[in-house]
């Protein structure tokens, strides 16, 4: 039988899924073992057991100075920034995507501008953002917002424009106004696509969040990583990286679940 027609049996599947994870873990353990045998105090590749011990300590023990468990504070602060930034961007993307996709005047006025603005690398704007919005929460949220909004607008505008013209004509023959067409014909079709676009935008949103926190902050997941980098605490860095990955994965899964529950007709495109 040809290789392309061979399908893994039910018994083998879980094994194949776990395999790449095991390979990475094994490679890391071997490299870590080599370094630690040469220098037991080595910080660069801590043993997996050290990482687990550090993770446990980070999640349960309070800070020396304030007594707060910094791990959960960092998580809460970062998730709040991410939620506000992405939420505002989603709202803006939806409104402007609808306008540009449906209304020729809006399209002519804004299409070129949005296409141009989306080419600005947001990280290059960071020094300007700090001067305009200060070093506080606002500049961090603005970086996420500026970073992903143009993408969301462009995506949703083109998806609005993809709505079959027949539907729009039909709605008009039934007497629908522009407002009714936007809210009753276009919007319901756009919402599941908004969730998909937000899922795609979350990757860059995390990137912008961590970049902003790296530069000026006193709490947050990105802040902690860049702070402990000063004394090469790889066990803390790796714990945070794994935690961020888990959070991003959970967020993505939650959005997919929401999409399936709220818009079962839209299918599961991603």
């Amino acid at each position, binding site marked *: 039988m040809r290789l392309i027609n061979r399908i893994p049996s039910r018994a083998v599947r879980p094994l194949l899924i776990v395999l790449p994870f095991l390979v990475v873990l094994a*490679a890391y353990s071997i490299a870590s073992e080599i*370094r630690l045998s040469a220098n037991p105090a*080595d*910080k660069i590749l801590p043993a997996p057991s050290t990482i687990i011990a550090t993770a446990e300590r980070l999640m349960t023990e309070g800070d020396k100075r304030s007594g707060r468990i910094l791990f959960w504070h960092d998580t809460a602060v970062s998730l709040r920034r991410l939620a506000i930034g992405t939420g505002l961007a989603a709202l803006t993307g939806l409104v402007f995507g609808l306008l540009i996709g449906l209304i020729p005047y809006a399209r002519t006025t804004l299409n070129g501008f949005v296409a141009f603005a989306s080419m600005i690398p947001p990280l290059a704007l960071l020094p300007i953002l700090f001067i305009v919005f*200060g070093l506080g929460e606002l500049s961090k949220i603005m970086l996420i917002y500026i970073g992903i909004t143009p993408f969301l607008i462009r995506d949703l505008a083109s998806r609005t424009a993809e709505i079959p013209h027949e539907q729009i004509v039909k709605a008009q023959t039934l007497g629908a106004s522009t407002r009714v067409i936007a809210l009753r014909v276009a919007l319901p079709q756009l919402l599941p696509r908004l969730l998909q676009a937000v899922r795609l935008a979350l990757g860059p949103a995390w990137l912008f969040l961590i970049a902003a926190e790296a530069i000026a902050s006193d709490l947050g997941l990105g802040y902690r990583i860049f*702070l402990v980098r000063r004394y090469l605490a790889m066990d803390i860095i790796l714990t945070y990286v794994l935690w961020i990955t888990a959070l991003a994965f959970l967020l993505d899964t939650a959005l997919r679940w929401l999409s399936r529950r709220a818009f079962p007709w839209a299918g599961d495109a991603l």
Partner: protein
Amino acid sequence: MLKTLLLTTALAATALSPAAAQEKTDFKVAWSIYVGWMPWGYLEDSGIMDKWADKYGIDVEIVQFNDYIESVNQYTAGAFDAVAATNMDALSIPAGGGVDTTALIVGDYSNGNDAIITKGGMGLADLKGKPVNLVELSVSHYLLARALDSVGMAEKDLSGVLNTSDADMIAAYATPDVTTVVTWNPMVAEILSGPDATKIYDSSDIPGEIIDIMFANTEVLDANPAFGKALAGAWYEVMGLMSEGNEDALTAMAEASGTDLAGYKSQLDATAMFYAPREAVAFTESGELKSTMTNVAQFLFDKGILGEGAPSADFVGVAYPDGSVSGDKDNVKLRFSTEFMKLAAEDKL
């Protein structure tokens, strides 16, 4: 498939394995932009390094880093044989990470280069309840702790410290919500040149505590004394040029650090350079170095940056030229040696 995997793993492991201590001829040195370290760039560009390396039959490559901490991390990882760093960072990063490190050339100490700057005429006592922007866990943080200590306050009396990258310090100071920054030159000079900026404390208030040193891997150095000799020879040749005011050398260093001759000279005024190896030897042998390092170790431990396994401030041992040790005698990872500076002082290089 399995073979490839094993091969990749083995390769990755070799790439990440620490530098082996053995006789070798190629050495790599890392440094970053700072007033007291500009000679390292100059001696590489001018060919002085090559001249001394040839004399000892070795090859030395001097690499400039844009990011200071990255250079120290790379050294700790074993990618470099020596690195220009401060006494505090050498204790916390390589020595705290178990990399046995020797202070080869004590180049200078900061004598005003690091400063606390405020807006609106605030003094040290006025910092109570206010935020301070600085590179957290750096010598700036140490300077702030010493300053607060001098007026009977501690970090908990502030509303907090905000970690701010050195690259963004000048822009940060321009925003209204930043009222106090702690930073180093050339940022200090730039911030002070603006209106409404007052320097309220600087490293000349704690002279000799923030020391800039060329550190080398002890094992590499022990196996290859020629490496130490070549570095010391090249360094003190440039020190000679600087102390006699050689304009070509000074201008080259000024330009490489992004300023002009006058700007560089004013930064040098805030730096206690040890032009003569004799002075560096005397400083390294003085008893004050011991109390400074004990202070620094306590600061690092209080901030929790001596490493996770560190049970106390004495976790890492520091050895001094007279053979004494502060901290754990069974875990000496930082050594102050005058061996090569003495050879330079006695003209034996």
